[in-house]
């Protein structure tokens, strides 16, 4: 089901650029500096110009810096172009194949011959270079479950790479040819982003989730409200913090792309530590690679917001733009043809659980199809083990393998002319899930499940 080609030990030995424990003391002045943001600290540490000297140069927002990259990913719709660019440049060897990840996730298993041929191209590349290959888990969820560590720089040829900010990595999306350049040299130029700080306070009311919070925020700041910027999330106290599981943080970091954020970073705390214990890194190298970076207290922010969790209601966004956000009450009664629960934004076990709780003993409305797609093989297995899948099937919903699938209208739930879908996926852009005349509304998995039951956009609170 899932294949991991582990890098050979000889390639592992080349990882000289990642700071080890001994190195970390050299960064102490940066890590302890109270005037630097998360982004400024990590880029100062990973800056190539000073990585081999003792004097660390501080990098400030606005600076353009070449950094050492710890992980460079492409998926099945961006990888082929990256491979072609490498071929055109005549590049035969990768800098360090143990840092190169290819993922077949967007249309997996191949929905047709054209996709199958591109998948074959990627498999050939992987076996030639001995890099990592993951099939049938969404890249961002796989990276979170097995590869990301705090303080890594992760670049991916996929916009939602910023999800790994939930574990305090500097993670962001770039294009295919640039990822080919990273595969070649292990480095890329980055501009140090300015930072927006968002402080979270209050407690969620029943039926309100991380997805509602981030949709509400995007509605306020707009689709380019954080373009080029870093988001730093902060909790006003421990009580607030405990509401944000790693799954919820991942949802927020992922969806931050929808207001243009370059990175979206959560603090490292006991939830991070527990997550790393529960999901051990496959490189088994936790301590060596982990760099604990807390943003400085007196660092400069271009904007500061406070979000009171207790004031948020279930949100519904769309159609056509993510920042067109309404409360569920304003959208109630719009009839739907499909309800989709899945994607890297909201296809994690926490999402599978809430949907199972709501569908238990209930039926999907006869005019609606409900498609449930887990974000990774691990989520898929866990949903089966915990008995959720039986509940889904009983209710009349369809449970698929892990893939991007319906989120990008490529298979397993594409929309036809004039069809309407409510979805927990990332985007509702024109034609995103299929026909140009179809319409997509975005909401939390709970709101999508309530809508599946009623056959129209519905408030989840009455089912919880």
């Amino acid at each position, binding site marked *: 089901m899932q294949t991991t080609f582990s890098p050979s030990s000889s390639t592992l030995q080349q990882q000289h650029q990642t700071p080890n424990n001994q190195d970390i003391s050299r960064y102490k002045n940066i890590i302890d500096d109270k005037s630097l943001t998360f982004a400024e600290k990590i880029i100062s540490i990973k800056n190539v110009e000073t990585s081999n000297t003792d004097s660390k140069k501080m990098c400030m927002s606005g600076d353009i810096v070449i950094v050492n990259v710890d992980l460079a990913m492409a998926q099945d719709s961006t990888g082929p*172009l990256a491979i072609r660019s490498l071929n055109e440049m005549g590049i035969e060897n990768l800098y360090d194949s143990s840092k190169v990840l290819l993922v077949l996730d967007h249309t997996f298993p191949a929905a047709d011959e054209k996709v199958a041929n591109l998948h074959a191209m990627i498999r050939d590349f992987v076996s030639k270079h001995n890099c990592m290959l993951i099939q049938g888990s969404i890249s961002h969820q796989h990276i979170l479950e097995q590869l990301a560590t705090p303080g890594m720089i992760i670049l991916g*040829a996929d916009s939602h790479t910023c999800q790994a900010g939930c574990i305090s990595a500097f993670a962001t999306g770039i294009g295919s*040819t640039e990822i080919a350049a990273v595969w070649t040299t292990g480095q890329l130029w980055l501009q140090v982003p300015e930072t927006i700080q968002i402080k979270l306070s209050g407690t969620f009311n029943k039926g309100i989730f991380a997805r509602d919070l981030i949709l509400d925020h995007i509605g306020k700041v707009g*689709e*380019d409200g954080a373009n080029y910027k870093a988001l730093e999330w902060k909790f006003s106290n421990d009580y607030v913090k405990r509401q944000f599981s790693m799954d919820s943080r991942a949802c927020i970091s992922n969806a931050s792309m929808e207001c243009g954020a370059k990175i979206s970073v959560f603090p490292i705390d006991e939830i991070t530590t527990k997550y790393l214990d529960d999901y051990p890194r496959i490189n088994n190298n936790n301590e060596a690679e982990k760099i604990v970076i807390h943003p400085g207290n007196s660092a400069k922010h271009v904007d500061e917001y406070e979000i009171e969790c207790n004031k948020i209601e279930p949100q519904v966004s769309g159609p056509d733009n993510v920042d067109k956000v309404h409360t569920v009450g304003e959208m109630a009664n719009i009839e739907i043809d499909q309800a989709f629960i899945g994607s890297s934004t909201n296809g994690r076990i926490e999402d599978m659980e809430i949907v199972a709780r709501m569908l238990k003993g209930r039926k999907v409305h006869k005019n609606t199809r409900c498609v449930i797609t887990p974000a990774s093989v691990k989520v898929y297995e866990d949903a089966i083990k915990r008995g959720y899948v039986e509940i889904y099937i009983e209710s009349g919903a369809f449970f698929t393998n892990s893939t991007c699938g319906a989120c990008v209208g490529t298979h397993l739930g594409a929309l036809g002319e004039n069809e309407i879908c409510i979805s927990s996926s990332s985007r509702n852009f024109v034609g*995103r899930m299929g026909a*140009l005349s179809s319409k997509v509304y975005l909401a939390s998995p709970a709101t999508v499940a309530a809508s599946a039951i009623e056959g129209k956009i519905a408030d989840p609170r009455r089912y919880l």
Partner: protein
Amino acid sequence: MIMRDQSHHGINPVNLKGKAWVFGDDINTDIIIPFRFKSRTNDPYEMAKYAMYGLDPDFHKKISKGDIVVAGRNFGGGSSREQAPVALKYAGISAIIAESFARIFYRNAFTIGLPILEISEIKGKVNPQDDLKIDITNFVVENVRTNETFYARQVPEFMRQMLLEGGLVEYYKKYKHFPWIQS
């Protein structure tokens, strides 16, 4: 695998001239090329057939080589797909002028050698089908109809060099190193 047509590379984009196609804000990459088409080919000419498909499936048939896209805020938001600027370039678009660009699209356009110019006051200053002239060396745009001149935001020198060479692949083929590494 189909090779890129060399005539598109090493373009000397110092002086561009073309007719304007005007769009609004938030033209995202799903509009520029839908996933289900771009994910089933690795051929830029095939991608070009879907340029701006989300707003007009026949866009690629209507434009002439050298035409220029003019748009509002946040052009190219959403997915990281490099196929978006590639589709526009191979459909014949010679440059994009917008009030602002989304981050990844901005990088991708320079990478593939498609000139993009950020001019915050461009809105309302260009009508559809206006003739525009662009001086890429200096990042200056002229609207021939109104005789107005606009100065685009400057970019780091290594990006300008990469653009003038026709993109990252062409730059690398010529110099055997990446443009941000000064040798």
